[in-house]
């Protein structure tokens, strides 16, 4: 029993981290129309950043500053945002597809750096060991899992509230206008480069927070964590859940992570030994098929974007009540 609950805690922690990253992508794609093809780059910047700033010092290794947890996590977030800022300055004035190509390229480049910059990233072996929050106060593994889940949910909640606040403000309205029609938005005085840059940086910083949480959970990061599979998974989560709807993004993250986990189980249990080696590719195909089906039958996702009304709900209800009297 405790095994199952413990596994559920693990599952929800990972799903929560995925949900955070998907919220970041939703700001990019759902609200601004930015095609980020290198989600994993910003996740990785946050992951390695947090690890280097907060991890224990090791011989022949730069970093290991052992900074307090929140400072390390915050540092990872800032590094991810700064990376996005540089990418944005270089590409946002160009045509849209340049952003997709360059973010994808940055992700590949970052993986190569992680593999080779031994002194900074530990190379292919990665960086191991991280003073996880509350770890030395709690000696029970299960309890630690629950506490960490609460930390993830708290961060998810804070990010959720901030993003909701942003996208429902005039700033969010301007982002959506840029997404819908840049020419018209410019004719109405909106500066697309400024708006896109903000969106890119904030979304990437959120992805960085996901990366920071991830490494402080596993206390380990390696180039294996920087593979394009994560970008692909996060896109699947957003498309299935519903771009332009934060509830959809979170729902999609939980669902797809569930499908991913269950299919992984099923394949290791049921598939013949000869196929085990390809289990990963079968999961790819499964998620890919799911994306295609969604795009054909329900392109707006499970929870589609809502059109904003002229009056808040409560005011309209009151108005319709008074007309009925």
């Amino acid at each position, binding site marked *: 029993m405790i095994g199952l609950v413990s596994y559920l805690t693990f599952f929800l922690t990972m799903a929560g981290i995925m949900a955070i990253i998907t919220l970041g992508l939703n700001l990019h794609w759902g609200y601004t129309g930015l095609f980020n093809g290198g989600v994993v780059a910003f996740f990785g910047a946050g992951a390695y950043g947090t690890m280097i700033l907060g991890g224990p010092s090791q011989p022949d290794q730069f970093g290991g500053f052992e900074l307090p947890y929140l400072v390390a996590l915050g540092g990872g977030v800032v590094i991810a945002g700064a990376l996005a800022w540089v990418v944005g300055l270089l590409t946002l004035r160009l045509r849209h597809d340049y952003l997709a190509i360059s973010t994808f390229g940055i992700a590949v480049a970052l993986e190569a750096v992680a593999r080779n910059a031994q002194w900074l990233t530990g190379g292919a072996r990665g960086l191991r060991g991280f003073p996880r929050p509350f770890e030395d106060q709690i000696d029970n593994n299960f309890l630690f899992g629950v506490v960490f889940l609460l930390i993830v949910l708290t961060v998810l909640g804070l990010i959720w509230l*901030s993003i909701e*606040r*942003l996208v429902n*403000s*005039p*700033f*969010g*309205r*301007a982002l*959506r*206008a840029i997404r*819908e*029609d840049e*020419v*018209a*938005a*410019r*004719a*109405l*005085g*909106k*500066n*697309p480069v400024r708006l896109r840059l*903000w969106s890119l940086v*904030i979304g990437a910083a959120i992805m960085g927070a996901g990366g920071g949480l991830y490494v402080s959970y596993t206390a380990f990061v390696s180039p294996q964590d920087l593979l394009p599979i994560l970008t692909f998974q996060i896109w699947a989560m957003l498309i299935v859940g519903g771009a*332009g709807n934060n509830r959809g993004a979170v729902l999609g993250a939980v669902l797809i992570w569930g499908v991913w986990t269950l299919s992984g189980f099923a394949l290791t249990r049921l598939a013949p030994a000869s196929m085990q080696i390809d289990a990963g590719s079968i999961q790819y195909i499964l998620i890919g098929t799911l994306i295609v089906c969604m795009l054909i039958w329900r392109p707006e996702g499970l929870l589609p*974007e809502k*059109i*904003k*009304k*002229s*009056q808040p709900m409560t005011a309209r209800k009151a108005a319709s009540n008074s007309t009925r009297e």
Partner: protein
Amino acid sequence: MTDSALSLRGLTKDFGPFRAVDDVTLDIRRGSITGLIGPNGAGKTTLFNMVAGSLKPSSGTVSLGDVDITGRPPETLFSLGLARTFQIPRPFRRMSVVENLMLAPPAQIGETVPGALFRRRNVARQEHALRDKAQGILDFVTLSHLADQPAGMISGGQMKLLELGRALMGDPSVILLDEPAAGVNPTLTNILIERIRELNEGGVTFVVIEHDMDFVMRHCDPVIAMAAGRVMFQGTSEEARTNPELLDAYLGTAA
């Protein structure tokens, strides 16, 4: 202050070897409804695009009142009081009609990230005022019943009215309208004309590209005609009606 709302000097646009607008010098009289006519491909829209900043002129200058605006990006011109609509409407399709309007006013507090996150009270107050203003303008352009509809779902004619409404949210002093009556049914066209006249009496200068000669002759003064990138005629609508060259080049086929 000059009495020209817009002054164009030697404005020229080359697309590769092709000269779409050729050395156009014009003064748009403040407070006028100036009609801009000419056959398809004459360069009218290209001229608008240069004035509104969407295209950089190959040579020549544009001034808005006394301010040289040559080559300025379009987003800086809206807050200077220059608004434009598009020949093919460009609504923000997945946004409601009222949001299309509320978006427009410049320098909103909540348009910056810090403002949106931390100045909620001020933003809410401003939003309230914007919503009232948008609803007033929607009444004015007869779209209030569609306020909550996605702008992509309304008719083409209604989109033209929406674009006018959007432009009005910035309290512009000069509005460039590119074929406002094209594809619009007579009822909506009449509403549009009525609104343009009312705004004009309130001091707004209009430049209107239009193929509907009846519209131009009845409501525009002066009339400017372009052909092959050049200005071939400037004068009152009366003069336009009787100009043999114009009749030949353009009106002959249209009228």
